[in-house]
């Protein structure tokens, strides 16, 4: 009987809600954006280099 009761014991509910797959995907992609931002910040570019905008007036 004790064994049955133990087997049926319900584990305590987790305090934090588990992330869904889409939320995990989003968190990973946001992390990636931040990581790439850091990589970009580490690249030295001469101060006189302008952005390569294609448009002309």
């Amino acid at each position: 009987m004790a064994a049955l009761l133990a087997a049926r014991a319900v584990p305590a509910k987790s305090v934090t809600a588990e992330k869904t797959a889409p939320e995990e995907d989003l968190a990973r992609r946001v992390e990636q954006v931040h990581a790439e931002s850091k990589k970009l910040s580490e690249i030295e570019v001469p101060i006189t280099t302008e952005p390569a905008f294609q448009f002309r007036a």
Partner: protein
Amino acid sequence: MATLSDDVFFAGVAEINRRLRAREFSCVELVRAFSNRLEKLGPRYNALALSLREHAIRKAKSVDDELKRGRTRSAVQGIPFGAKDLLSVAGQITTWGAKPYAAQIFDHDATVIKKLDRAGAVLIGKLSMVELAGGGGYRYASASLQGPGLNPWNRGYWSGGSSSGSGSAVAAGLVAFALGSETWGSILTPSAFCGVTGLRPTYGLVSRFGAMPLSWTLDKIGPMCRTAEDCGLVLHVISGGDSNDPGSAGKSFYFMPQYSRPLQDLRVGFAEVDFTEWAAPEARKDFQAALETVRSLGVSLIPVELPDRPYSLITGTIINAEAASVFESLIRSGKVDELADERQIAGLKAALELKSTDYLKAMRIRRLVQEDMRKMFAKVDLLISPTRFGPASKITEALDRSSAPSPPPRRRGLRDLGAFGNLCGLPALSLPCGFANGLPIALSVVGRPYSENAVLALGMAFQKVTDWHRRRPPV
């Protein structure tokens, strides 16, 4: 009514045009035959977004009238073609391959559609694509309103994207040529995987008006055809300045193969490591044979290597920033959740986190890449490299996993030619050059800006001595 043999479905533009003018069949007969084939077989590859049969037959009748009166317009007159479903056709649904836009209708034709119509070409259908041309980055081939693009050579494999339907439809002879678009790989990849010849023109040479924007400074529209010659004929029609397109270069392209420089005068840059270590093992034999074929044409082959820069990081940052701005209201409204691919949804949402300083930094590094390009093209006239290092992946495979060899080769060669070429707005031609595991592989020829005639000349010479572009999938 003439019965068209299967040959006509796999014939080049110039040949079909010649046979039309010789009245072997009428334009109406030709268009009916292609429309039947597109409607019947297009769904087999998830290639068809929308049949435009009635519109096409009306146009075909007017072409027949003109031909009867001896009025010839262009080499594409009477030729049935398909357009990637990011190009607007007035009064018709244009889905952008994406559920949120499934009922979208524009009141104007894209400039390229108008130009082809004026030249007498006959639009018979809209062709499927990866949703939003893959903006945000997708994980699976199923990232499309029309389902995964299936490869006519083996439907268990991907047709490539984002111009998936365009690649499949040309390969399977459902259209004589198609229009695709490329931001980063979307003409060249499906061309390579489906064994067709695709041309990414110089940025600004072809108007983007009426095309879904993904990344304003990277988007290009180009032809996907059976041959390099056909690409030249179509580009001749669709290119040219357009005041409706802020990125238009205001330049025209005249297809002049008869005036190209002799091949013996051409310096062609290549990297041995691309054809050996970077290439997938099953593709190396045919890639190396293709390299020898290019050598046999009499060009000077010169070893080169791209400078060490973070090309993927820069290109990805630019696309993400521009796409996030284009689709900002889609993302903030939550309608982005209707897209098919979870990774793409996440990518678009995350892109809103990008800082303006990151975008500007990427655009400044892009300026440095353009300087590298000018130095490179002082030494060579063209660059060649495998379009993709291996054949198409299985339909169920995740596309965001690296297929690079492990450990990677020590020399980088021209491995990042795709990103480099798109960052600099360079023209590129993908040429079928063999098979690996029964699936097509292709060689890319890349030139300096506005050198399409030289790029096409090498392509045409390659196709004169090979027959990969004439092979047909088991349809």
